C-alpha cells in the first residue's frame, strides 16, 4: 500500500516551466512517479521533456486525469495556486513553496477542512513512498523500501533520521514532510491515522519540534486510536524560548510548546522518545525486533 503517493499517483506540477519546477518534476519522474502534466499560465501547448503544459490546473486534470498536484510557484502566487489545485478536484495537493502568508493559510485550512481533499505543506519537502514514487524535493537516495512510516515537521531532520534508519537496514513505507509553518494542511494526527490504516506500515516515527501543540495532541491520539507502535523524536531542547527559529512554526507558544513538555506528553502516553537521531533509529530497531 503506502500512503498518499504510490503507483496510482498521476502528478500535475504547477510552475513546471520554472527552474526548480522543471528540475524537480523531472527528478520525480526519474524516480518513477507518473508525472502527467505541468501548468504555467500562457504556456498551454508546450511541453517539458515530453510532459504536456496546460494554462490551468482544471484543463490539466481534464486533459490527463491527474489526481495529485505539486505547487512549485513563488510564495506570492502560491495561495492562488493551492486554491486552483483544490478546485480542479485532485485528491492530494503537495505545496513545497515556503513563505505563504499565515492569514492566507488560515483561510485555506478552514476551506480545506470542509471538504475531503488533502493538502500536505506548505513549506514542506513533500512525500516519498520508497520504490513507488515521490512528490517533492526529498533526496531519494536516503530512502529504502520498508515497513516504517515517518512523519515530520522538518525536512533535513527527516533525511537525517532516514539515514540513521538506513544504517540499521530499516526502510520506509512512506515518508511525509508535513511542513514547518504555523498552519499546515495536514497535521501529525491526519498522517498517523493514515499509517494506522496502512497494512504495509508496522511502526511510525513521528519527528516533532518546539512550538504549537500538535505533538501533545498526537500523543493523546496515539494512546486512544493507534495499535501501530510509534517512536518519536523532538528537536529544540536547547532552543531559546520566544525566539523565531527559521520556521515561523518554531516560535514557542506557552509552556505547552517546549521540547521537554512534548517529550513528557508523549512518554506519558507510552510513546518512546529518542534523545538524538541515532537513538531514534535504535529504538525503532528494538521495537521491530
Amino acid at each position: 500500500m503506502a500512503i498518499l503517493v504510490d503507483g496510482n499517483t498521476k502528478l500535475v506540477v504547477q510552475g513546471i516551466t520554472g527552474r526548480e519546477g522543471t528540475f524537480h518534476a523531472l527528478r520525480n519522474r526519474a524516480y518513477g512517479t507518473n508525472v502527467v502534466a505541468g501548468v504555467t499560465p500562457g504556456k498551454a501547448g508546450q511541453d517539458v521533456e515530453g510532459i504536456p503544459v496546460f494554462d490551468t490546473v482544471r484543463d490539466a486534470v481534464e486533459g490527463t486525469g491527474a489526481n495529485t498536484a505539486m505547487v512549485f510557484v513563488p510564495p506570492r502566487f502560491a495561495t492562488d495556486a493551492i486554491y486552483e489545485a483544490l478546485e480542479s478536484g485532485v485528491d492530494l495537493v503537495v505545496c513545497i513553496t515556503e513563505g505563504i502568508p499565515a492569514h492566507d493559510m488560515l483561510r485555506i485550512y478552514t476551506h480545506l477542512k470542509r471538504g475531503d481533499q488533502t493538502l500536505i505543506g506548505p513549506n514542506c519537502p513533500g512525500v516519498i513512498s520508497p520504490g513507488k514514487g515521490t512528490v517533492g524535493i526529498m533526496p531519494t537516495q536516503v530512502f529504502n523500501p520498508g515497513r516504517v512510516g515517518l512523519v515530520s515537521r522538518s525536512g533535513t531532520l527527516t533525511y537525517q533520521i532516514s539515514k540513521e534508519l538506513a544504517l540499521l537496514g530499516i526502510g520506509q513505507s512512506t515518508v511525509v514532510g508535513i511542513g514547518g509553518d504555523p498552519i499546515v494542511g495536514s497535521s501529525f494526527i491526519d498522517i498517523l491515522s493514515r499509517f494506522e490504516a496502512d497494512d504495509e506500515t508496522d511502526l511510525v516515527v513521528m519527528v516533532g519540534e518546539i512550538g504549537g501543540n500538535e505533538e501533545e495532541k498526537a500523543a493523546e491520539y496515539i494512546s486512544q486510536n493507534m495499535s501501530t507502535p510509534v517512536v518519536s523524536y523532538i528537536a529544540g531542547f536547547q532552543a531559546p524560548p520566544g525566539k523565531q527559529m527559521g520556521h515561523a512554526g518554531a516560535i514557542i507558544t506557552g509552556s505547552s510548546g517546549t521540547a521537554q513538555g512534548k517529550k513528557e506528553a508523549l512518554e506519558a502516553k507510552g510513546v518512546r522518545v529518542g534523545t538524538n537521531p541515532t537513538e531514534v533509529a535504535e529504538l525503532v530497531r528494538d521495537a521491530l525486533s
Partner: protein
Amino acid sequence: MDLFEYQGKQLFARHGIPVPSGEVAETPEAARSAAERIGGKVVVKAQVQVGGRGKAGGIKLADTPAEAEEHARAILGMDIKGHTVHTVWIEAASAIVKEYYASITFDRGEKKPLVMLSAMGGVDIEEVAASNPEALARLHVDPLTGFQAHHARWLVSNAKIDVGAQKGVVAILQQLYAAFIDLDAMLVEINPLIWTESGDVVALDAKVTIDNNALYRHSDLAEMQQSVTEDEQERMAQERGVTYVKLDGDVGILGNGAGLVMSTLDVVALAGGRPANFLDAGGGSQADEVVTALEVLLSDTKVKSLLINIFGGITRCDEVAKGLLTALDKMNATLPIVVRLDGTNEEEGRKIIAEQAPDNVVVEQTMLSAAQRAVELAKGA
C-alpha cells in the same frame, strides 16, 4: 516583525482605534517641544521591544514640558533588559478609570484567530489567565466569515466589562480585528485598554507583530522595519537574510533547515557542550549563502569551535564545501571547524574539503561524532 509601541499606535489610529495623541522624540529637546505641542500633562515612554519597561523606569509622567525633557534625558540611552532606548514616545496623559486587556493572536492548535478580552488589564495577563481563567473571555473566529458584532458583544458580556465602557470596547474589538486582517498581523495586543474619566475607551499600549511572509503586500509596513538588534552578529544576519539567534555558549553551529539545526544544538548539549548560536543557512543554500552565513559566525569572537552540519536535499554538499573554503580564505579563520556532510553530492563535498581545506578543518562521518568532536575542540581551545 515586531513593531514599536508608537508604530502600533499609528496603525491603530489609521484603523479608527482611539489612541492618545502623541509624538516620537529622539532627543530630550525634541521631547520638550513635543510636550509643548501636545499640551498638559504628558507621559514619556521608552520605545523598546521588551516587556517590563515600566518597572525599569522607562515610563514617566511629566507635568511640564521641562519635566518631559528631563525624563527623556534619563530614559534615552537607558538599557532595558539588553535593549538600548533610542526613541521615546511622548503622549497626552490619560485619566484612567479602569484598565482592560484585549488581544487577537493565531491559535495554532485550533487553527483560528483567537480573540481575548479581560476586565483585569494593566497587569500580567498570563498570571490572570492562570489564576483566574474566568476573567479572560476567549473566542475563536471562523476565518472565512470573520469577526462579527455579536462576537464582540459576547466577549464584552462574558469578560464583564463595565456597562459604561461596553459600547466603546465592542467598537474597538471590531476595529482591532479589521486591523489584524488588513495588516496581516500575527498578534495585535492592547494592554492596558483603558476606560477614561471622560467615558472613552482608548488603547494605551499597542503591541503588533506582522507576518514577515506578508510584507510583500504591505510596502508601508516594510518601511517600518528597522534593526532593533543590539548584537552585531544578529544585525549582520538580519541584513543578509540569514536566520540567526545568538546563544551563550562557545560552539558555533551552522546547519541547513530549522529542524536539523535544533537537533544539532541538542546533540551538542548532550555531548556536554554549549551552543553559541542557532544559524539556519536555509533550504537551497548555494556557495554564496554559505559564505555569508560563515562570515556571521566567524565574526563572533566567543565562538571557540565551529560545527557545520549539513544534510543535502536541495542543498548540495559540494556547494557548502566551496562556500566554506571561500569564507576561510576571506576571514582567515584559524579556529577548529568540524564538518559533517551528508546527502546530495556528499562525496564531492568531502573530497573538496579533504583536498583543499586547511588543517583546522576536520571531517566527521556522523552527526553524533561531529558534535562530540566540536565540543572537545571548544574545550581544548
